[in-house]
Protein backbone atom coordinates (compact mmCIF):
# COMPACT_ATOMS: atom_id res chain seq x y z
CA UNK A 1 0.00 0.00 0.00
CA UNK A 2 1.03 3.63 -0.47
CA UNK A 3 2.22 5.77 2.44
CA UNK A 4 0.04 8.39 4.12
CA UNK A 5 2.52 11.04 3.04
CA UNK A 6 2.27 9.98 -0.59
CA UNK A 7 -1.50 10.26 -0.31
CA UNK A 8 -1.35 13.67 1.41
CA UNK A 9 0.97 14.91 -1.34
CA UNK A 10 -1.66 14.12 -4.00
CA UNK A 11 -4.46 16.09 -2.34
CA UNK A 12 -3.69 19.47 -3.99
CA UNK A 13 -3.80 17.89 -7.45
CA UNK A 14 -7.04 16.08 -6.65
CA UNK A 15 -8.56 19.32 -5.37
CA UNK A 16 -7.60 21.19 -8.53
CA UNK A 17 -9.15 18.57 -10.79
CA UNK A 18 -12.27 18.36 -8.61
CA UNK A 19 -12.62 22.13 -8.66
CA UNK A 20 -12.70 22.11 -12.44
CA UNK A 21 -15.11 19.18 -12.51
CA UNK A 22 -17.65 20.67 -10.13
CA UNK A 23 -16.99 24.41 -10.45
CA UNK A 24 -17.67 24.73 -6.74
CA UNK A 25 -15.32 24.76 -3.74
CA UNK A 26 -17.49 22.78 -1.32
CA UNK A 27 -18.67 20.20 -3.87
CA UNK A 28 -15.10 19.75 -5.04
CA UNK A 29 -13.81 19.04 -1.55
CA UNK A 30 -16.72 16.65 -0.92
CA UNK A 31 -15.63 14.80 -4.03
CA UNK A 32 -12.01 14.71 -2.84
CA UNK A 33 -13.14 13.48 0.58
CA UNK A 34 -15.17 10.64 -0.94
CA UNK A 35 -12.23 9.78 -3.17
CA UNK A 36 -9.76 9.62 -0.27
CA UNK A 37 -12.10 7.46 1.78
CA UNK A 38 -12.53 5.08 -1.10
CA UNK A 39 -8.80 5.05 -1.74
CA UNK A 40 -8.07 4.10 1.87
CA UNK A 41 -10.60 1.28 1.79
CA UNK A 42 -9.31 0.02 -1.56
CA UNK A 43 -5.68 0.77 -0.74
CA UNK A 44 -4.69 -2.81 -0.19
CA UNK A 45 -5.58 -3.54 -3.81
CA UNK A 46 -3.15 -0.91 -5.02
CA UNK A 47 0.10 -2.22 -6.46
CA UNK A 48 3.14 0.02 -6.76
CA UNK A 49 2.73 2.19 -9.82
CA UNK A 50 1.17 5.50 -10.68
CA UNK A 51 -0.64 6.61 -7.51
CA UNK A 52 -1.97 9.78 -9.11
CA UNK A 53 -3.57 7.93 -12.02
CA UNK A 54 -5.04 5.40 -9.61
CA UNK A 55 -6.54 8.18 -7.48
CA UNK A 56 -7.91 9.96 -10.54
CA UNK A 57 -9.55 6.69 -11.60
CA UNK A 58 -11.10 6.43 -8.16
CA UNK A 59 -12.33 10.02 -8.37
CA UNK A 60 -13.81 9.33 -11.80
CA UNK A 61 -15.79 6.40 -10.37
CA UNK A 62 -17.04 8.45 -7.43
CA UNK A 63 -17.95 11.36 -9.72
CA UNK A 64 -19.81 9.16 -12.19
CA UNK A 65 -21.75 7.44 -9.42
CA UNK A 66 -22.71 10.77 -7.93
CA UNK A 67 -23.96 12.40 -11.07
CA UNK A 68 -25.72 9.24 -12.14
CA UNK A 69 -27.39 9.06 -8.74
CA UNK A 70 -28.40 12.70 -9.08
CA UNK A 71 -29.94 12.00 -12.48
CA UNK A 72 -27.61 13.69 -14.94
CA UNK A 73 -27.98 17.02 -13.17
CA UNK A 74 -24.68 18.33 -14.30
CA UNK A 75 -25.85 20.35 -17.22
CA UNK A 76 -26.50 23.78 -15.82
CA UNK A 77 -27.80 26.67 -17.81
CA UNK A 78 -25.41 29.65 -17.82
CA UNK A 79 -27.90 31.81 -15.96
CA UNK A 80 -28.05 29.25 -13.13
CA UNK A 81 -24.34 29.38 -12.54
CA UNK A 82 -23.10 31.46 -9.67
CA UNK A 83 -21.36 34.51 -11.02
CA UNK A 84 -18.31 33.93 -8.84
CA UNK A 85 -18.34 30.19 -8.33
CA UNK A 86 -14.61 29.87 -7.98
CA UNK A 87 -12.20 31.93 -5.93
CA UNK A 88 -14.36 35.01 -5.40
CA UNK A 89 -11.46 36.73 -3.67
CA UNK A 90 -9.38 36.84 -6.82
CA UNK A 91 -9.43 39.32 -9.64
CA UNK A 92 -9.67 37.08 -12.63
CA UNK A 93 -9.56 38.17 -16.18
CA UNK A 94 -12.88 38.10 -17.96
CA UNK A 95 -11.63 35.25 -20.15
CA UNK A 96 -11.00 33.06 -17.12
CA UNK A 97 -14.49 33.68 -15.76
CA UNK A 98 -15.94 32.96 -19.18
CA UNK A 99 -13.98 29.72 -19.33
CA UNK A 100 -15.18 28.61 -15.91
CA UNK A 101 -18.76 29.15 -16.98
CA UNK A 102 -18.28 27.52 -20.37
CA UNK A 103 -16.65 24.51 -18.73
CA UNK A 104 -19.73 23.83 -16.64
CA UNK A 105 -21.83 23.82 -19.81
CA UNK A 106 -19.92 20.85 -21.18
CA UNK A 107 -21.22 17.36 -20.51
CA UNK A 108 -19.49 15.74 -17.50
CA UNK A 109 -17.76 13.31 -19.86
CA UNK A 110 -16.35 16.09 -22.03
CA UNK A 111 -15.30 18.07 -18.97
CA UNK A 112 -13.41 15.10 -17.51
CA UNK A 113 -11.43 14.54 -20.70
CA UNK A 114 -10.67 18.21 -21.21
CA UNK A 115 -9.42 18.61 -17.63
CA UNK A 116 -7.38 15.40 -17.53
CA UNK A 117 -5.60 16.30 -20.75
CA UNK A 118 -5.54 20.10 -20.69
CA UNK A 119 -5.06 20.74 -16.98
CA UNK A 120 -3.71 17.55 -15.41
CA UNK A 121 -1.43 16.87 -18.39
CA UNK A 122 -2.28 13.20 -18.78
CA UNK A 123 -1.45 11.53 -22.06
CA UNK A 124 -4.44 10.40 -24.15
CA UNK A 125 -3.68 6.78 -23.19
CA UNK A 126 -3.54 7.65 -19.48
CA UNK A 127 -6.81 9.56 -19.71
CA UNK A 128 -8.40 6.58 -21.46
CA UNK A 129 -7.28 4.26 -18.65
CA UNK A 130 -8.55 6.62 -15.94
CA UNK A 131 -11.92 6.93 -17.65
CA UNK A 132 -12.15 3.30 -18.71
CA UNK A 133 -12.82 4.22 -22.35
CA UNK A 134 -10.99 3.60 -25.62
CA UNK A 135 -8.49 6.25 -26.71
CA UNK A 136 -10.72 6.99 -29.71
CA UNK A 137 -13.51 8.02 -27.35
CA UNK A 138 -11.11 10.28 -25.46
CA UNK A 139 -10.12 11.97 -28.74
CA UNK A 140 -13.67 12.52 -29.92
CA UNK A 141 -14.76 13.91 -26.54
CA UNK A 142 -11.72 16.15 -26.54
CA UNK A 143 -12.62 17.51 -29.97
CA UNK A 144 -16.18 18.23 -28.95
CA UNK A 145 -15.10 19.84 -25.68
CA UNK A 146 -12.49 22.07 -27.31
CA UNK A 147 -14.79 23.10 -30.13
CA UNK A 148 -17.56 23.90 -27.69
CA UNK A 149 -15.26 26.04 -25.57
CA UNK A 150 -13.94 27.80 -28.64
CA UNK A 151 -17.44 28.66 -29.78
CA UNK A 152 -18.52 29.88 -26.37
CA UNK A 153 -15.37 31.92 -25.84
CA UNK A 154 -15.49 33.50 -29.28
CA UNK A 155 -19.23 34.09 -29.24
CA UNK A 156 -19.75 31.71 -32.16
CA UNK A 157 -22.69 29.37 -32.30
CA UNK A 158 -22.48 27.44 -35.54
CA UNK A 159 -20.06 24.57 -35.97
CA UNK A 160 -17.57 25.62 -38.62
CA UNK A 161 -17.45 23.63 -41.81
CA UNK A 162 -14.12 21.98 -41.27
CA UNK A 163 -12.29 19.19 -42.96
CA UNK A 164 -11.11 16.51 -40.58
CA UNK A 165 -8.38 15.20 -42.82
CA UNK A 166 -6.47 17.25 -45.34
CA UNK A 167 -3.63 16.10 -47.51
Amino acid at each position, binding site marked *: MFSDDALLAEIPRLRRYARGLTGDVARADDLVQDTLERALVKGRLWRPGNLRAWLLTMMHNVFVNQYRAAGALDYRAPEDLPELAVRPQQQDGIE*VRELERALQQLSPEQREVLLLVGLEDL*SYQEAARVLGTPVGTVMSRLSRARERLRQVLSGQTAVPDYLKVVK
Partner: protein
Amino acid sequence: MSMHGPISEDDLHSWVDGRLDAARRAEVEAWLAEDPARVERAEAWRKSNELLHAAYDAVLDEPVPARLRAIVEQQRRRPGAVRAAAVAAWVTVGALIGTGLGYRLGQSSPAAADELAALPRQAAVAHAVYSPEIKHPVEVGADQEQHLVTWLTKRLGAPVRIPDLASHGFALLGGRLLPATDGPSAQFMYEDDAGRRLTLYLSVRDGDTSTTAFRYAQENDVGVFYWVDGRFAYALSGQFGRDALLPLANTVYHQISP
Protein backbone atom coordinates in the same frame (compact mmCIF):
# COMPACT_ATOMS: atom_id res chain seq x y z
CA MET B 1 3.59 17.47 -48.78
CA SER B 2 3.62 15.17 -45.80
CA MET B 3 6.05 12.46 -44.77
CA HIS B 4 3.80 10.78 -42.23
CA GLY B 5 0.43 10.98 -43.84
CA PRO B 6 -2.26 13.61 -43.70
CA ILE B 7 -2.74 15.90 -40.73
CA SER B 8 -5.59 14.51 -38.65
CA GLU B 9 -7.60 16.04 -35.86
CA ASP B 10 -5.64 13.84 -33.44
CA ASP B 11 -2.45 15.49 -34.71
CA LEU B 12 -3.92 18.88 -33.92
CA HIS B 13 -4.70 17.84 -30.36
CA SER B 14 -1.20 16.42 -30.01
CA TRP B 15 0.19 19.71 -31.29
CA VAL B 16 -1.92 21.67 -28.77
CA ASP B 17 -0.82 19.38 -25.92
CA GLY B 18 2.86 19.39 -26.90
CA ARG B 19 2.96 15.68 -27.64
CA LEU B 20 4.47 15.66 -31.13
CA ASP B 21 8.07 14.99 -32.03
CA ALA B 22 9.93 17.80 -33.77
CA ALA B 23 9.46 16.42 -37.29
CA ARG B 24 5.73 15.95 -37.02
CA ARG B 25 5.33 19.28 -35.24
CA ALA B 26 7.02 21.01 -38.19
CA GLU B 27 4.64 19.28 -40.60
CA VAL B 28 1.60 20.28 -38.56
CA GLU B 29 2.80 23.86 -38.32
CA ALA B 30 3.44 24.03 -42.07
CA TRP B 31 -0.10 22.75 -42.62
CA LEU B 32 -1.55 25.27 -40.18
CA ALA B 33 0.31 28.11 -41.88
CA GLU B 34 -1.49 27.40 -45.14
CA ASP B 35 -4.77 28.74 -43.79
CA PRO B 36 -5.41 31.43 -41.13
CA ALA B 37 -8.65 29.67 -40.10
CA ARG B 38 -6.66 26.55 -39.18
CA VAL B 39 -4.28 28.61 -37.06
CA GLU B 40 -7.12 30.41 -35.35
CA ARG B 41 -8.80 27.16 -34.36
CA ALA B 42 -5.64 25.46 -33.09
CA GLU B 43 -4.62 28.57 -31.18
CA ALA B 44 -8.06 28.73 -29.56
CA TRP B 45 -7.63 25.14 -28.38
CA ARG B 46 -4.23 25.95 -26.99
CA LYS B 47 -5.57 29.08 -25.35
CA SER B 48 -8.20 27.00 -23.53
CA ASN B 49 -5.41 24.94 -21.93
CA GLU B 50 -3.79 28.16 -20.71
CA LEU B 51 -7.09 29.42 -19.36
CA LEU B 52 -7.64 26.15 -17.47
CA HIS B 53 -4.34 26.66 -15.71
CA ALA B 54 -5.10 30.35 -15.08
CA ALA B 55 -8.43 29.38 -13.55
CA TYR B 56 -7.41 26.44 -11.38
CA ASP B 57 -3.68 26.40 -10.65
CA ALA B 58 -4.20 28.62 -7.60
CA VAL B 59 -5.91 25.61 -5.94
CA LEU B 60 -2.50 23.92 -5.75
CA ASP B 61 -1.24 26.65 -3.42
CA GLU B 62 -4.21 26.54 -1.08
CA PRO B 63 -3.59 24.83 2.27
CA VAL B 64 -5.13 21.36 2.39
CA PRO B 65 -8.40 21.65 4.36
CA ALA B 66 -8.23 20.08 7.80
CA ARG B 67 -11.14 17.72 7.11
CA LEU B 68 -9.27 16.16 4.15
CA ARG B 69 -6.01 15.93 6.05
CA ALA B 70 -7.86 14.28 8.95
CA ILE B 71 -9.15 11.44 6.78
CA VAL B 72 -5.65 10.37 5.90
CA GLU B 73 -4.19 10.96 9.35
CA GLN B 74 -6.93 9.09 11.21
CA GLN B 75 -5.72 5.98 9.43
CA ARG B 76 -2.28 6.59 10.81
CA ARG B 77 -3.46 7.06 14.40
CA ARG B 78 -5.67 4.00 14.68
CA PRO B 79 -3.02 1.30 14.21
CA GLY B 80 -0.52 3.26 16.28
CA ALA B 81 -2.20 2.53 19.60
CA VAL B 82 -2.47 -1.18 18.90
CA ARG B 83 1.12 -1.19 17.67
CA ALA B 84 2.41 -0.22 21.11
CA ALA B 85 0.59 -3.22 22.59
CA ALA B 86 2.09 -5.44 19.90
CA VAL B 87 5.60 -4.26 20.71
CA ALA B 88 5.00 -5.01 24.39
CA ALA B 89 3.79 -8.47 23.40
CA TRP B 90 6.92 -9.01 21.32
CA VAL B 91 9.12 -8.13 24.28
CA THR B 92 7.24 -10.68 26.37
CA VAL B 93 7.49 -13.39 23.75
CA GLY B 94 11.18 -12.66 23.29
CA ALA B 95 11.68 -13.34 26.97
CA LEU B 96 9.64 -16.53 26.71
CA ILE B 97 11.53 -17.78 23.67
CA GLY B 98 14.75 -17.08 25.51
CA THR B 99 13.55 -19.09 28.50
CA GLY B 100 12.21 -21.84 26.24
CA LEU B 101 15.50 -22.10 24.42
CA GLY B 102 17.31 -22.44 27.74
CA TYR B 103 14.85 -25.10 28.71
CA ARG B 104 15.41 -27.00 25.47
CA LEU B 105 19.16 -26.83 25.79
CA GLY B 106 18.90 -28.25 29.25
CA GLN B 107 16.33 -30.94 28.47
CA SER B 108 16.90 -33.08 25.43
CA SER B 109 13.27 -33.85 24.49
CA PRO B 110 10.44 -31.53 25.44
CA ALA B 111 7.04 -33.17 25.60
CA ALA B 112 4.71 -32.88 22.60
CA ALA B 113 2.12 -31.14 24.75
CA ASP B 114 4.55 -28.30 25.39
CA GLU B 115 5.09 -27.78 21.66
CA LEU B 116 1.40 -27.20 21.19
CA ALA B 117 1.30 -24.96 24.24
CA ALA B 118 3.51 -22.43 22.44
CA LEU B 119 1.15 -22.28 19.45
CA PRO B 120 -1.57 -19.92 20.71
CA ARG B 121 1.00 -17.45 21.96
CA GLN B 122 2.90 -17.41 18.67
CA ALA B 123 -0.36 -17.01 16.78
CA ALA B 124 -1.60 -14.26 19.09
CA VAL B 125 1.64 -12.32 18.81
CA ALA B 126 1.61 -12.63 15.02
CA HIS B 127 -1.99 -11.44 15.08
CA ALA B 128 -1.17 -8.48 17.34
CA VAL B 129 1.78 -7.47 15.20
CA TYR B 130 0.26 -7.70 11.72
CA SER B 131 -3.49 -7.24 12.02
CA PRO B 132 -3.28 -3.48 12.84
CA GLU B 133 -1.03 -2.97 9.84
CA ILE B 134 -2.58 -0.64 7.26
CA LYS B 135 0.22 -0.43 4.72
CA HIS B 136 1.53 -3.98 4.68
CA PRO B 137 -1.00 -6.30 6.32
CA VAL B 138 0.07 -9.14 4.04
CA GLU B 139 3.04 -10.06 1.85
CA VAL B 140 0.94 -11.49 -0.96
CA GLY B 141 -2.53 -10.11 -1.55
CA ALA B 142 -5.75 -12.00 -2.12
CA ASP B 143 -5.65 -10.98 -5.76
CA GLN B 144 -2.79 -13.49 -6.13
CA GLU B 145 -4.42 -16.25 -4.13
CA GLN B 146 -3.17 -19.06 -6.35
CA HIS B 147 0.38 -17.78 -6.11
CA LEU B 148 -0.02 -17.54 -2.34
CA VAL B 149 -1.09 -21.20 -2.12
CA THR B 150 1.74 -22.39 -4.37
CA TRP B 151 4.38 -20.33 -2.59
CA LEU B 152 3.39 -21.30 0.96
CA THR B 153 2.92 -24.95 0.02
CA LYS B 154 6.48 -24.93 -1.26
CA ARG B 155 7.91 -23.12 1.76
CA LEU B 156 6.02 -25.14 4.35
CA GLY B 157 6.55 -28.39 2.48
CA ALA B 158 2.92 -29.48 2.83
CA PRO B 159 -0.21 -28.68 0.82
CA VAL B 160 -1.69 -25.42 2.10
CA ARG B 161 -5.38 -24.65 1.74
CA ILE B 162 -6.97 -21.28 2.32
CA PRO B 163 -10.44 -21.39 3.84
CA ASP B 164 -13.21 -19.19 2.46
CA LEU B 165 -14.92 -17.24 5.26
CA ALA B 166 -17.20 -15.14 3.05
CA SER B 167 -20.26 -16.80 4.61
CA HIS B 168 -19.21 -15.12 7.88
CA GLY B 169 -18.60 -11.79 6.18
CA PHE B 170 -14.81 -12.09 6.18
CA ALA B 171 -12.86 -11.57 2.94
CA LEU B 172 -9.30 -12.79 2.45
CA LEU B 173 -6.71 -10.00 2.44
CA GLY B 174 -3.77 -12.30 1.72
CA GLY B 175 -1.02 -14.03 3.61
CA ARG B 176 2.56 -14.01 4.72
CA LEU B 177 5.39 -16.34 5.62
CA LEU B 178 6.55 -16.17 9.26
CA PRO B 179 9.38 -17.68 11.26
CA ALA B 180 8.25 -20.05 13.99
CA THR B 181 10.63 -21.33 16.66
CA ASP B 182 11.45 -24.43 14.62
CA GLY B 183 10.80 -23.53 10.98
CA PRO B 184 8.51 -21.59 8.67
CA SER B 185 4.87 -20.91 9.43
CA ALA B 186 2.21 -18.96 7.61
CA GLN B 187 -0.46 -16.44 8.41
CA PHE B 188 -3.60 -15.66 6.43
CA MET B 189 -5.53 -12.51 7.18
CA TYR B 190 -9.22 -11.78 6.70
CA GLU B 191 -11.25 -8.63 7.16
CA ASP B 192 -14.96 -7.92 7.43
CA ASP B 193 -16.85 -4.80 6.32
CA ALA B 194 -16.43 -3.25 9.76
CA GLY B 195 -12.64 -3.52 9.38
CA ARG B 196 -12.32 -6.29 12.01
CA ARG B 197 -9.48 -8.64 11.22
CA LEU B 198 -9.05 -12.31 11.76
CA THR B 199 -5.85 -14.28 11.25
CA LEU B 200 -5.26 -17.98 10.67
CA TYR B 201 -1.81 -19.12 11.70
CA LEU B 202 -0.49 -22.49 10.63
CA SER B 203 2.69 -24.40 11.17
CA VAL B 204 3.84 -27.82 10.04
CA ARG B 205 4.44 -30.56 12.56
CA ASP B 206 7.04 -33.21 11.99
CA GLY B 207 6.08 -36.85 12.16
CA ASP B 208 3.14 -36.77 14.49
CA THR B 209 -0.13 -36.72 12.55
CA SER B 210 -2.54 -36.97 15.44
CA THR B 211 -5.63 -34.83 15.61
CA THR B 212 -6.65 -32.84 18.65
CA ALA B 213 -9.86 -31.18 19.75
CA PHE B 214 -10.29 -27.41 19.69
CA ARG B 215 -8.61 -25.58 22.49
CA TYR B 216 -9.11 -21.97 23.40
CA ALA B 217 -6.62 -19.51 24.83
CA GLN B 218 -6.81 -15.81 25.55
CA GLU B 219 -3.61 -13.81 25.09
CA ASN B 220 -4.23 -10.25 26.30
CA ASP B 221 -7.19 -9.13 24.17
CA VAL B 222 -6.62 -11.71 21.44
CA GLY B 223 -8.74 -14.87 21.53
CA VAL B 224 -7.22 -17.97 19.89
CA PHE B 225 -8.80 -21.28 18.91
CA TYR B 226 -6.12 -23.83 18.08
CA TRP B 227 -5.98 -27.44 17.08
CA VAL B 228 -3.89 -30.02 15.26
CA ASP B 229 -5.15 -31.80 12.19
CA GLY B 230 -2.84 -34.04 10.22
CA ARG B 231 0.47 -32.36 9.49
CA PHE B 232 -0.68 -28.87 10.41
CA ALA B 233 -1.24 -27.06 13.65
CA TYR B 234 -3.81 -24.28 13.22
CA ALA B 235 -4.60 -21.25 15.31
CA LEU B 236 -7.41 -18.82 14.53
CA SER B 237 -7.00 -15.45 16.26
CA GLY B 238 -9.24 -12.43 16.58
CA GLN B 239 -9.92 -9.58 18.92
CA PHE B 240 -13.47 -10.64 19.64
CA GLY B 241 -15.05 -13.03 22.11
CA ARG B 242 -14.89 -16.78 22.25
CA ASP B 243 -18.53 -17.13 21.15
CA ALA B 244 -17.92 -15.08 18.00
CA LEU B 245 -14.73 -16.96 17.19
CA LEU B 246 -15.99 -20.52 17.64
CA PRO B 247 -18.26 -20.70 14.55
CA LEU B 248 -15.39 -19.28 12.45
CA ALA B 249 -13.01 -21.93 13.80
CA ASN B 250 -15.60 -24.60 12.97
CA THR B 251 -15.87 -23.39 9.39
CA VAL B 252 -12.10 -23.32 9.01
CA TYR B 253 -11.81 -26.81 10.40
CA HIS B 254 -14.48 -28.27 8.10
CA GLN B 255 -13.08 -26.58 4.99
CA ILE B 256 -9.47 -27.60 5.38
CA SER B 257 -9.52 -30.95 7.13
CA PRO B 258 -7.90 -33.42 4.72
